[in-house]
């Protein structure tokens, strides 16, 4: 780390803001005293709830603020730092607001959604703090475009060599190169699932079949198996060269797949965080409206 990360932004300024907020909330909470049990309906409860709701709206506003590139006060890093600390504080504030009273109702729904948002945020923060280093290490100073460019060259090389081999090897390698799968759906990207295939020519009359080629290993094995059986020296040499390319390709693909997966994990929490935030805001409105429907 050469710069300060979000947690330590401005010397952790927003940590102290959040702590102050939480401390005053606890004071407020306990001021409800024994006269009436702590509840969202006391004035203290209303204050806590209002503050928490406004905070949630403000926290969600980060989504707008970070896209208001020209205007807006402060830096997005500052906002993010505050977002993290105050977001955590909201968890406590809302818990104090509801005084740990839960049930099968819209109010608890808001709480649950809020917890979903906050805990997915915790996960995201963890990712943000740990993942970039893994990403950088995996890419080893190369941009993803560079890796793709190299893969592209490898593909061309493999095709060129394959064209000189026997039709069976040629078909296998050519189809293996073409049917290499990278990324894909969300699951495939995150779990590095590899649905690559290659085509094996049928013997005699039989048609060609598509075989799985996960991690390119089957194709590597296929080519390697042909080396000892090569009829001519030049063919063996060709196959050797081909194998070297295929292995290099394999490691390149692993690197790319890992890059895609790491990038994916770095983002995927947002697919929980953001939609749940939107649902939370709706639930919050419903929570407030229903409180006043049956006043």
């Amino acid at each position, binding site marked *: 780390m050469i710069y300060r990360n979000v947690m330590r932004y401005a010397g952790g300024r927003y940590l102290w803001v959040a702590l102050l907020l939480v401390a005053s909330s606890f004071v407020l909470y306990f001021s409800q005293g024994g006269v009436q049990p702590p509840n969202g309906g006391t004035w203290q409860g209303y204050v806590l709830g209002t503050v928490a709701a406004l905070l949630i709206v403000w926290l969600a506003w980060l989504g707008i603020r970070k896209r208001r590139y020209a205007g807006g006060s402060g830096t997005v890093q500052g906002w993010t730092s505050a977002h993290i600390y105050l977001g955590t504080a909201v968890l406590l504030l809302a818990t104090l607001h509801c005084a740990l009273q839960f049930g099968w109702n819209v109010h608890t729904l808001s709480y649950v959604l809020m917890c979903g948002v906050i805990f997915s945020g915790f996960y995201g923060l963890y990712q943000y703090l740990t993942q970039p280093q893994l990403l950088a290490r995996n890419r080893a100073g190369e941009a993803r475009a560079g890796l793709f460019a190299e893969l592209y060259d490898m593909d061309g090389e493999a095709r060129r060599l394959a064209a000189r081999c026997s039709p069976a090897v040629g078909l296998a390698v050519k189809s293996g190169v073409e049917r290499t799968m990278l990324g894909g759906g969300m699951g495939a990207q995150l779990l590095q699932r590899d649905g690559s295939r290659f085509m094996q020519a049928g013997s005699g009359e039989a048609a*060609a079949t598509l075989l799985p080629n996960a991690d390119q290993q089957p194709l590597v094995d296929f080519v390697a198996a042909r080396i000892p059986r090569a009829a001519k020296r030049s063919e063996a040499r060709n196959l050797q060269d081909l194998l070297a390319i295929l292995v290099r390709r394999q490691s390149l693909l692993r690197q790319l797949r890992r890059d895609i997966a790491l990038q994916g994990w770095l983002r995927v929490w947002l697919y929980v965080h953001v*939609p749940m935030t939107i649902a939370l805001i709706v639930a919050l409105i419903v929570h407030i409206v*229903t409180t006043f429907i049956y006043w």
Partner: protein
Amino acid sequence: MNVLIREQLDTGSGFEEFQDTELQCERLDIGSAPDQQIQLLGRDIKGNALQLTWRNGKLMLRGVGKTSVQVNGQPCRTAELQHGDVIELDGNRLTVIPAPAGFDVALELHRASNSDAANFENAFVTSLAGSGISMRALSWTLAAITLLVSLLLPLASVYWRDAGAEPPAWLPSDALWISGPLHPVHELAAGDDCRSCHQQMFVQVRDKACQECHEEIADHLSHTLLEKHPDNQIRCASCHREHNEPRPTLIIRADSLCTDCHADEQKMEIAPELDIVTGFADKAHPTFRAHLLQPDGVDDSGAAAWKTVLSKIDGASEQSNLKFPHDVHLDPEKVTSKQDDAPLECNSCHQLNSDREHFAPITMERHCAACHELTFDPAFPERQLPHGKPEEVIFTLEGHYLKRLSDPDYKPATVKKRRRPDRKKKRVEVCSEATYQCALQKAARDTDDQFTRQGCVSCHEISVYPERELYQRYAVKPVKLSSDYFPSARFDHGSHRSVKYPDDDKTLSGSEACASCHDAAQSKESSTLLIPDVDRCVRCHRSERERGIVPLQCIGCHAYHPQPSEDAMDPAQQEVDE
């Protein structure tokens, strides 16, 4: 179908070179996914973009989803293909060529030259944004479900029910909006029908809803006052909070609920007779004002009437028409129990009711008669005057003396009498008249004695009308003891049977405990009010939580709702002779 795919290779040599692939499949899938029979890479090509089927000698093409495919230059979605037709997909060309023997279909494939390395990366979906799952769609969906389930559907069920029909069971109901459990009784009464209390949406629960069940609960303020002063509106729900947790606690005990009005001089203008109360502490609470009884002539029926007057404790005196020196009775030198010769305790006479606040009525028969016998003739110590019926006293005396004097064995009594030193020597009774006359005279003398010198008069106030004839000459003033000096406040005598003052080490109990508030031992007159003032209470109780102090809230003593009296009588009055 049997398919021959003839792919034109890009060798750069200028010669046309082809590679043939034979396939056998039900359906020929074309797309960017690796499991497609013909895999074409390209940014805009979907995993499965085209499907070719062979049916009844016809080759049919179908585009999957929104695939934009061109057949012979015309965009289309489905087509029947003929020889020579050219399918174009994002720069890739597929030409239908005559099938050689043994094949149903033959296609010539000319791939788009993806010699551009920059485009190569685009052939793969490498970011979550491209994975087809849209955060925006997810957000909208989740938000819509939330809105629907938690607000719109329950709302629908409410209107359904309002319309008089029973909504289907699966429909989320307004039970989802509940913010906490109901008081069990209310739950039993209302069930899950929120509308039984929340009758109007966005309007706070009205008292009317409560009063539908709680019909006879009395109001703190009269309606006339409320109508005059609408600002002082207090709702049931101001004090009674439903849906409270953890225990369903209906009553809010905060002092502020009282002091909001009672500490506010402006609001209290509607009841000028009441003092301002800001809490329970020195000076925060006004001095007590006791309800005292005062004779008020006679009512229409001729019975004695009483009125209640409010009086500050300091300097208050009672008028009960009963003579009772507490000091004498509590002085062991003077009075001891007849049974065991022990000194009298407070509870010898004052026995606490089961309500732990009030005491059982004092009656002559139960509390006085043991010592104060109503004998009148020493010769007949077993004969007693009837209590409470002054005219029968005369009849009793007359009857007694008639019977005695007409007794042939009569002789004047020789019984020694206790004499009091200050009394003159007893008159010698001499009667020379007829027995009957003598007996009447004797009875009249004794009657006079009883009502003016000893007997009745020692405890009661007697009115003597000498001009009247005997039977109407003496009137015992009616006696009434106050049973409740503070009808609008409660005091738990039971829990004060033993007390310890904060500034005192000793724990007091029994009569000592009583005496620490009620200074009976020094009370010579029954008119002295033995009720302590607020300063006595605040030694131990204040509304603020403090060390060594037992906190006391308004409703610790005062009830908000006036208690309905069971016999519709003034609760402060008690007929002694009951």
